[in-house]
């Protein structure tokens, strides 16, 4: 390890460097990397008499992967997450665009600050509030009832699950899109207008291509968060039909099927890694080709 400020490598200064550099990797290796690695090990263990026992068997992998309901659930989870990421990206874009190009600096600051907050405030309680709003006797149906409509079924279905996902991901997608749009070179846009590129055409031919990395990043993040979410399918979707996270939680909580939960968890991690890899290639790949 060499210091940028000074290249004096006396013993004392390297003690200083190590003392500051090591705590983070040690902690993360001990409790994060080790946990993920152990999950791999666990997936080959077996359960005997309701007790997890060290073993080396492909049983868990075989059982899970041959189960029809698992494959269906896997596809469903991917489709749900894709739908959520698409919806969030589409709904967020006009918002991020307005923030970047139409809003006053004050409004920008207020909105950005308010959008940061939900990321750190109980998603659980927010999802529950949607239940209050969406049930047959809930607020929205009561209002609809007064004008003679409804009640519309808005819980325990795909609509409810998507509302839940959007609660989780919409603020962060707006923020990420906004940051990438805010970085688009204004001169490019002016140049486009100069060349008589219309407002709408400018958005599609200039702004979206220049902000593409950020837009893809936002959609990827939305996918990852929805893919792994347990609260929305469980509370708003009422576990019917389940997603992978619901299966996994069931395997851990109702029974000691930890090894099978490990298989599901690893499958999810692998999927997310693949998605992240593909998305990054898609986001940066084109750029590299062009330059």
């Amino acid at each position: 390890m060499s210091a940028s400020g000074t290249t004096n490598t006396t013993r004392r200064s390297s003690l200083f460097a190590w003392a500051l550099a090591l705590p983070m990797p040690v902690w993360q290796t001990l409790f994060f990397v080790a946990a993920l690695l152990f999950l791999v090990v666990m997936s080959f263990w077996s359960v005997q008499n309701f007790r997890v026992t060290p073993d080396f068997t492909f049983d868990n992998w075989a059982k899970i992967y041959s189960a029809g309901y698992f494959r269906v659930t896997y596809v469903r989870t991917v489709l749900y997450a894709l739908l959520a990421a698409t919806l969030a990206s589409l709904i967020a874009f006009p918002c991020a665009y307005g923030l970047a190009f139409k809003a006053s600096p004050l409004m920008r600051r207020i909105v950005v600050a308010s959008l940061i907050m939900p990321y750190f405030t109980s998603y659980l309680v927010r999802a529950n509030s949607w239940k209050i709003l969406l049930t047959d006797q809930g607020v929205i149906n009561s209002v609809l009832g007064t004008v003679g409509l409804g009640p519309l079924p808005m819980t325990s279905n795909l609509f409810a699950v998507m509302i839940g996902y959007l609660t989780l991901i919409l603020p962060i997608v707006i923020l990420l899109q906004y940051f990438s749009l805010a970085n688009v070179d204004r001169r490019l846009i002016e140049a486009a207008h100069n060349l008589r590129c219309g407002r709408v055409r400018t958005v599609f031919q200039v702004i979206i291509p220049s902000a593409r990395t950020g837009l893809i990043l936002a959609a990827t993040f939305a996918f990852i968060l929805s893919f792994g979410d347990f609260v929305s399918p469980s509370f708003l979707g009422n576990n019917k039909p389940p997603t992978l996270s619901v299966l996994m939680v069931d395997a851990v909580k109702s029974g000691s099927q930890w090894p099978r939960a490990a298989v599901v968890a690893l499958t999810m991690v692998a999927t997310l890694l693949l998605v992240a890899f593909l998305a990054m290639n898609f986001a940066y790949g084109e750029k590299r080709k062009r330059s």
Partner: protein
Amino acid sequence: MKADRIISLAFKAYIWLALLFVFAPILTSFVFSFDANKFAAIPWGGFSTKWYAEAFGDPEVAKSLRNTVIVALSSSILATLIGFTAAYTDYRYDFFGKKVYLALAFIPPTIPVIILGVAMLVLLGRIGLSGQLHSVIIAHVVYSLPFAMALIRLRLSQMNKDLEAAAWNLGASQWRALKEIIIPFCLPAIFSALFLTMAVSFDEYAIAWFVSGFNETLPVRILILLQREVSPKVNAIGSLVFIVSMTLVMLAQIVFLMREPGSGKGKRI
């Protein structure tokens, strides 16, 4: 141009609508936490604070609140401390494998909490650290230290690079310069990181659900209540949780943006 103004207004209205979507559930929780009716519906059943009384009267809730406070305080201090050392390392040193070093810090929050929860349960259970408060603390540090690291790193990048070298030049050892110059300069970010990691831990339900065992934290208690019964008690607890975490996040933002005179930026003429 008139058309421009209308378009601009339409965008602004859309932004406020999006904000309404984001904040509607929070408002709902507040409104119905004071509703006398058991089942939340329109019309409102009249003002009542009985759900708050019921929530606070519940010994399980009180216990879980105490646990949450212990976990949030300890994990935020640890996460900020470790986050600071990592941020300083990233700021000052260049070394082989730095990308791996940074990935180690920043990957955990991108992994679904539910998976982290299972992984932590499996590991901590095996080494006999599961089911206790310190298991939750350990897991929350893993998950929240990148937030602390990012805030402090951002602050360090606003620092005039010469400041630390100037301290050495005037006779301060590296440790002394850290104490006299780097830490005072980063103080706003350090407080900001403390508040933010506290908020992260205060709200975290999934990892805690898996590793806390019988030592539930407040979010875990909420989760259990939600699974068990329909009770506006949850709205009361939820509203309190909102207030606490929003206060923490707001404090984090305010402290971070607070510019004590001469934070160095733009003044380097």
